[in-house]
Each structure stands twice: as structure tokens, then as C-alpha cells.
């Protein structure tokens, strides 16, 4: 697949100047490498989503239901009445263009319809025509246009070229969030069966098996058992996670990517090591196979689907009678937990305000949702001197930190992961200011765009992030990109290989697992990846 992607030297030939034809008069051209494959009928059927069918984005005829326009307009009307965000963002944009060059997809593709303002105008133009008097009377004069099948194609193409990262929203003088418009746009597309496979399939898997990868309960346990063996080989200590255990104090939920795909698996080993270390200090945690997914591809489908998938967390916490929930490193999982979960599926009165059993710290910032981010939890442990750490075991790494969009702009989790990293690693360098924290650049593959067939889009969208990494790689010799997101751990390695070879990708708790000194452990000769620790070779 990778060989279909243009060479870097071709890829950087980006023209940011718009074409000579106005955007309403420039027909959409759906290009291979940019779009993702459509959702399949059985998947949509399984999720009781309408209009599953065989269709191709490259065909002229998308086999839309005959009354598609009515469905769509009715869907719009409903959402205008339900979401102030949608109504307001449709109304108040002044087209000042402050957001235009903030989108990584615009920077990477030069396609003007990837400027957040134009992405929103694709939908706004129809809103004006159908729902405002001025639009009805004056049409194009006020930027209104008729909804047609061609416009629908444009929506589909460009709403699946937005990773809902919210960077544009940071810069907009009114906070207009194009992610919000994309979310609603995708909801509308889903009314017509127009999802993409890479979102619908994981959502269906998650619904059925509890996780996106469709790992069944026994296989989930097998995977973790495998890490238990690996951990023992490396540390000499056998950890013993428990599953679906009633009466545990804490339920741990992490994205299934950590259990299944490198390098996320090393992060999972980090969790196991940390939990084992804490066990003798009174930490009582269980994993669940039913709620074995923190991530939520429902979020990329519709608010309703998000709620359907997210419901498992509280349901499982209730069934297992735990006191609170600890969440692993994941991006959009945390946006859902932080900004949606309690509202959708709460109140979680069966849980208690989280208290760290080790330090006694009450996480009052999670008083109602009752779920704590693992970097908050670990930062508190370190701050209270509860962890014995050997930083030098990460001395082969020169680390920088990628703020994932959702923890950054969706919750403000900025300093906790940095604090943890700086306590487990000796060398750390920040990327330039305009590319981190609230201004962070997306990995280019968020919101379900991490498929294989759209690799060119991913590498283009990931270019601004990669470029900032390249800067610190060249300037400071950075060789490891740390992050707190499972999608990042899956998509940044190929992105780095493409733009900045020589930089690896790690979760924060992999670094913790390397540094944490377990009681009774043997002298470690390798890190969690099985690579020799610094200084080991010379000793031999």
C-alpha cells in the first residue's frame, strides 16, 4: 500500500493558491488515496443504521434512496433545533479567514475546501438556502445554494477529510468549531447510509464484543497473558491482572489498540507493571472484557452511536460494583469521557468520587464523572514520592511530547503527561510553541480516518506534526515521540517513517514501565520492547 503514496519530494509540492473558478462552481473530484472505503451493508445492518448498500464513491450513482433530500433536510431541521452550536455556527461566521491556514489538511493538501471556513460553508450554503429568508430570496448573493447529489458528494468527501481536531476553533474570534459542524455533517450523511468502513466496522465490533478490534473475551485475556509472559521475561516479576472481577475498587478501561497493536502493547505492559507495583500498596483494580474499549468510533458516526457504545463503561462499573473508573491513554476516548459521558449516560450515582488508594488524593475534578485519567493518577503518585524510578533506563531516548487533539483542546490535559515524562526520562525537548498544547497539530488520522486506503491523506494531514518533530529531531536529536493516544500510537509510526525516519513512537506509560523499579525484579537488560538498555553492551 505504502508504495502507492507519492514520494516525499512529490508530496511537498503543495500549492496553497485557490483555483480560478469559484468554490461553488468547482465540482468535487474524489481522488484515490484521499477517500476512505464506504461502510458495508452488514455492518450498518448490525448497528441498525439505515440504507446499507453496495456503492462506490467513484461511481456517478451513489444509489441514494429516492426521498434522500427530504430525509436530509428533516435531519438538518432536527439538529438545528437540538444544537445551539450548530445553529449559531451556521449563522455568525464573518469569513474573516483566521481559521483558514490553521487546518493540517489544508496545509498538507492545499485544497481550499479543506480550509475550515470553506468546509463549513459546504453545509452552511445549504442551510442558508433552506432555513434562512435571505438565502431563499437572494440565493447566491448571500452564499446560498441548492442541495444536490453533487453537493452531497462534496460533503462526504470533505467531512471525511476533517479529523474533528478543533484547532480551527482555537483561533476563531467566535469559537466556531468546524469539528462540531463535521460531527453534525457526518450524522446527516449517516442518515443516508454514507459512513466509511473504517468507522462503521470498529463501531459494530465494539457494540458486539466490547472493543473495536472485535477481540472476543477469551482472546482478550490471551493477549494480556502474553504481555504477562513478556513482562516476566524482562523484569523477572510475574504480574497478575484480573478480569471482570466483582468487588474490585477500580475498573480500568483503555483503548483496545493498547492490547493489540505495537507500540501500544508496550504501553499496556507499562500499565501492568504499574498496577502490579501498586498492588501491595493497596491498589485493587480489574480489567473488563465487556467494556474492553475506551475509544469510541461511535463518536465519529453520531451522538447517538457515541452514547450507545459509551454506555458500557458505567454499566460494567455498576455490574462489577467498583467505586470508580481509571482510564488509559487515549485521545477521543477522553473527549467523550470528559465532555459527554456523564451527560449522556450518567449520573453515575453507583460510583464514588475517585480517591487514590495510595496517596489519598481526592480527584475532585472528576467528582461527577468519577473517572480519572491515568496520567493524572500517575502524576499524583510521583508527586507524592510513591514510585521508585530509575530514569536512566530511558537514557537511550531523547523524548518530545505530542499533545493529542482531544486531551489538549477537549479537556486541557497538558501538564500532567509532561510531568510524568520528565520524571521518568532525562532528556526532553518541546516542539515549537505554535505546534503544541492548545495549538497542537493533529496526527492527520484522527476521527476514524486511520484507514489504509487513504494513506496519502494521512501523510499530508500529518505533515505539520511531522515537520515539527523533524525540527526537534534535527535540532536536539529527538528520537522518540511520546503521546497519550492509541490512534497516535497506531498512526504516528508510519508517519514518522515517511517524514522523519529515525523517530519512534511511545505511550507515556511505556516510559513509566521502563523506569519503574519493581520490588524483587531482576537486573533489566532490555526495555519493554526487548531492546538493549543503554550501557548494557559495554558491560558484557
Amino acid at each position: 500500500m505504502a508504495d502507492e503514496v507519492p514520494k516525499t519530494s512529490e508530496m511537498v509540492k503543495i500549492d496553497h493558491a485557490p483555483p480560478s473558478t469559484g468554490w461553488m462552481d468547482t465540482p468535487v473530484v474524489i481522488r484515490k488515496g484521499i477517500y476512505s472505503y464506504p461502510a458495508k451493508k452488514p455492518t450498518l445492518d448490525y448497528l441498525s443504521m439505515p440504507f446499507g448498500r453496495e456503492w462506490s464513491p467513484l461511481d456517478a450513482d451513489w444509489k441514494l434512496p429516492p426521498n434522500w433530500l427530504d430525509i436530509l433536510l428533516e435531519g438538518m431541521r432536527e439538529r438545528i433545533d437540538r444544537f445551539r452550536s450548530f445553529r449559531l455556527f451556521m449563522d455568525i461566521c464573518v469569513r474573516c479567514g483566521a481559521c483558514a491556514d490553521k487546518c493540517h489538511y489544508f496545509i498538507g493538501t492545499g485544497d481550499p475546501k479543506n480550509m475550515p471556513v470553506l468546509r463549513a460553508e459546504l453545509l452552511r450554503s445549504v442551510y442558508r438556502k433552506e432555513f434562512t429568508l435571505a438565502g431563499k430570496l437572494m440565493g447566491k448573493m448571500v452564499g446560498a445554494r441548492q442541495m444536490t447529489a453533487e453537493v452531497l458528494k462534496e460533503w462526504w468527501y470533505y467531512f471525511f477529510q476533517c479529523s474533528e481536531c478543533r484547532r480551527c476553533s482555537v483561533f476563531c474570534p467566535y469559537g466556531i468549531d468546524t469539528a462540531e459542524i463535521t460531527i453534525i455533517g457526518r450524522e446527516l450523511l449517516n442518515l443516508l447510509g454514507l459512513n466509511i468502513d473504517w468507522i462503521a466496522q470498529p463501531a459494530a465490533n465494539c457494540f458486539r464484543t466490547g472493543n473495536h478490534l472485535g477481540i472476543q473475551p477469551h482472546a482478550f485475556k490471551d493477549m494480556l497473558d502474553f504481555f504477562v509472559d513478556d513482562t516476566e521475561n524482562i523484569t523477572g516479576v510475574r504480574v497478575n491482572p484480573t478480569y471482570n472481577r466483582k468487588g474490585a475498587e477500580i475498573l480500568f478501561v483503555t483503548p483496545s489498540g493498547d492490547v493489540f497493536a505495537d507500540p501500544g502493547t508496550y504501553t499496556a505492559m507499562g500499565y501492568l507493571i504499574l498496577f502490579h507495583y501498586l498492588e501491595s500498596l493497596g491498589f485493587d483494580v480489574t480489567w473488563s472484557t465487556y467494556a474492553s474499549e475506551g475509544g469510541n468510533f461511535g463518536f465519529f458516526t453520531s451522538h447517538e452511536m457515541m452514547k450507545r457504545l459509551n454506555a458500557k463503561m458505567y454499566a460494567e462499573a455498576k455490574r462489577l460494583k467498583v467505586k470508580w473508573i481509571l482510564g488509559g491513554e487515549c485521545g477521543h476516548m477522553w473527549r467523550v469521557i470528559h465532555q459527554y459521558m456523564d451527560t449522556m449516560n450518567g449520573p453515575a450515582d453507583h460510583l464514588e468520587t475517585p480517591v487514590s488508594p495510595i496517596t489519598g488524593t481526592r480527584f475532585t475534578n472528576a467528582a461527577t464523572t468519577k473517572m480519572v485519567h491515568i496520567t493524572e493518577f500517575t502524576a499524583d503518585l510521583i508527586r507524592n514520592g510513591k514510585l521508585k524510578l530509575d530514569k536512566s533506563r530511558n537514557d537511550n531516548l531523547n523524548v518530545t511530547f505530542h499533545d493529542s487533539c482531544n486531551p489538549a483542546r477537549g479537556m486541557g490535559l497538558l501538564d500532567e503527561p509532561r510531568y510524568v515524562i520528565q520524571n521518568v526520562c532525562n532528556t526532553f525537548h518541546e516542539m515549537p510553541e505554535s505546534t503544541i498544547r492548545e495549538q497542537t497539530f493533529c496526527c492527520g488520522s484522527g476521527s476514524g480516518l486511520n484507514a489504509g486506503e487513504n494513506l496519502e491523506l494521512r501523510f499530508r494531514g500529518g505533515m505539520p506534526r511531522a515537520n515539527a518533530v523533524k525540527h526537534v529531531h534535527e535540532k536536539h536529536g529527538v528520537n522518540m515521540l511520546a503521546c497519550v493516544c492509541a490512534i497516535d500510537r497506531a498512526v504516528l509510526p508510519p508517519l514518522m517513517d515517511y517524514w522523519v525516519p529515525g523517530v519512534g513512537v511511545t505511550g507515556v506509560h511505556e516510559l513509566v514501565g521502563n523506569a519503574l523499579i519493581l520490588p524483587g525484579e531482576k537486573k533489566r537488560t532490555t526495555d519493554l520492547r526487548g531492546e538493549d538498555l543503554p550501557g548494557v553492551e559495554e558491560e558484557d
Partner: protein
Amino acid sequence: MNVWASLILSLIAIGAVATVGAVAGAAVQFFDLSAAAWLFGVVIPYLAFVTFIAGFIYRVTTWARSPVPFGIPTVCGQAKSLPWIKQSRLESPFTKLEVVARMALEILCFRSLFRNTRMTFKGGRPLYGPNQWLWVIALAFHYTFLVIVIRHMRFFTEPIPGVLKLLEALDGFLQIGAPYVLISGFVMAGAATFLLLRRLAFANIRYISLPNDYFPLFLILTIAGTGILMRHVFKVDIVAVKAMMMGIVTFHPVAPMDIGMLFYIHLFCVCVLIAYFPWSKLMHMGGVFLSPTRNLPNNTRAVRHENPWNYPVKVHTYEEYEEEFREKMIEAGLPVEKEAAEEE
């Protein structure tokens, strides 16, 4: 629509507006048509004002009545978390007071626009430089706009409040001949010209611009231009203007007088602007206060945000899950609710 079409259309529109005003002025001036004077000096201002107030209230209440189902602030700084981690109180407000402070910064100082950067693409790599001049011009534009609106209050008040006189004194910097030269008018006209040139000069901004992005700028420039002309070049009878305006605000309209063509153009353009206001993008003035990404606290894990239309959804329960996988779970030694044997 391309830039020429947009420009021509909005120029035609503004031309038509100005012509109507001019014809009205001419009618009063040369033909002594008091019907025209009543229409343009009394009836249309009333109608425009009513449209503005009713429209503004309608738009704002429509937004305000729409539910905010989720707490979705765009967080622009460190959240309130562990006590020893420094919260960015203005960029990630937790309390109502902090939200008010964030909103005040947005509305009074255009905080987000101040963040602006500019991407340049050189040698195959993007660079991000600071870019605050839109912020400077926007601030200059809005504040002078505000000053001018307030200054016009002297036509509607008797006696003129001291603050207005003070404002005027601050605003004027030189006295050339009789009236002070007031800076605000020139600054606003200059800033509006800049906004217009910016729209035309940058290819991408030009590309996203619609006729209704140019129209309000032309309208404001016409108003500012005629205003400046009336003050400094073709002086109008201020006493007559004041009498006319006082008549309007006290609901005892007096027969409008011949104040000149410029005045009627100015007045008619203002009427068009305020009548147009509620139905256009200028409503960002009201909307910015209601923006859910800015006016909500980032405390959604600590305080529950209610969704008024939250409805039950179809979920996949644990029981359904165990039903499907029970055999495999038992085999793998995972605890189950119901033993397989009980089933049979």
C-alpha cells in the same frame, strides 16, 4: 461566485442604496417634496429601527432558546486538575467567574484573534509566524465604531450628557476651522478600507468572500465618507439635524427640513445598515456571547452538564454479551454471571 461578480453585485447594491438616498435628498432640496422628507426622514428611520430591535431580539432569543446539549468548551490552556498543577484560569475556566473573565477578554480584547498565526510554506516546510495585524485593525475598527455610535447620541439627547462631551474632547485632536477633527471617523474609515483591501489582496480570503461580505463594508464606508464630508467639507445645519432627531426620539416628529443630499444619503444608508444588521453576519455581535465553545466552563467531569433532550438508546447489554460468549469465557476462566450448565 468569483470576486468580480461579488464586487460588482455588492457595488450595484450599495450604489442603489446611495442613489435612493440621493434622490430623496434631491426631492426635498430641489422640489420641496415634503412627502419625500417625511418618508426618508421619519417613516423609514422608524421602520429601520423597529426592524433592528425586533430582528435582534428575534435572532438572539432563537439562539438562546436552542438547547446546549453538551458541555463543549474549546479548551485553550491547562485544566483545573491536581492542586499543584497550575490551572490556566482564563483559557480553561472552571468557575462561572472565570468564564465571565474569558468572555470579557474575547469580547473586549478579541483574545482568540490575537492568537492568530500565519502559515508560510517554504522549501517544502510550513512555518508559522505571528500575525496580529488583523487583530489591531479589527480592534481599531470596532472601538471607533463604538465611539462613533456613542458620539451620535448628542443628536438624541438634550441636554447632552457630560460623558459625551468628554468623549468628544478626547476624540478630537486639532481644531482646523470650526469643528474639531474627530479621529474616530477617519480611523474607522481607514480600518474598514483595510478590511476591504485585505479581502481583495489575499487570494484565499478573496476566495471565501461572498457579495454579502463586501456589501456591509461598502455600506459602512459610504456612511463614514458622507459623515466626514458633512462634518468637514459641505457643512450641514446641525441644529436642524438635532431638531429632527429629537422629534424622532420623543415621538413628536417634526417636519424634516432641507438638510441636503449628503445627509439623506447618510441617513438612508444608516437605516439600511441597521435594518440589514439582524439578518446578516453582523449578528456576530450578539452571537459571540452565546458561543458554546467559549461561554461554558471546562468542569464537565466535576459538575454534570444536563442535556434537555437526552433520550434512551439501544445498547448491547452485558447479558446479551455473555449469552453470546459464555462458553468461551468459561473455558478461558473468566467469571460469568450464569454458569453454562444452568442454561441447559
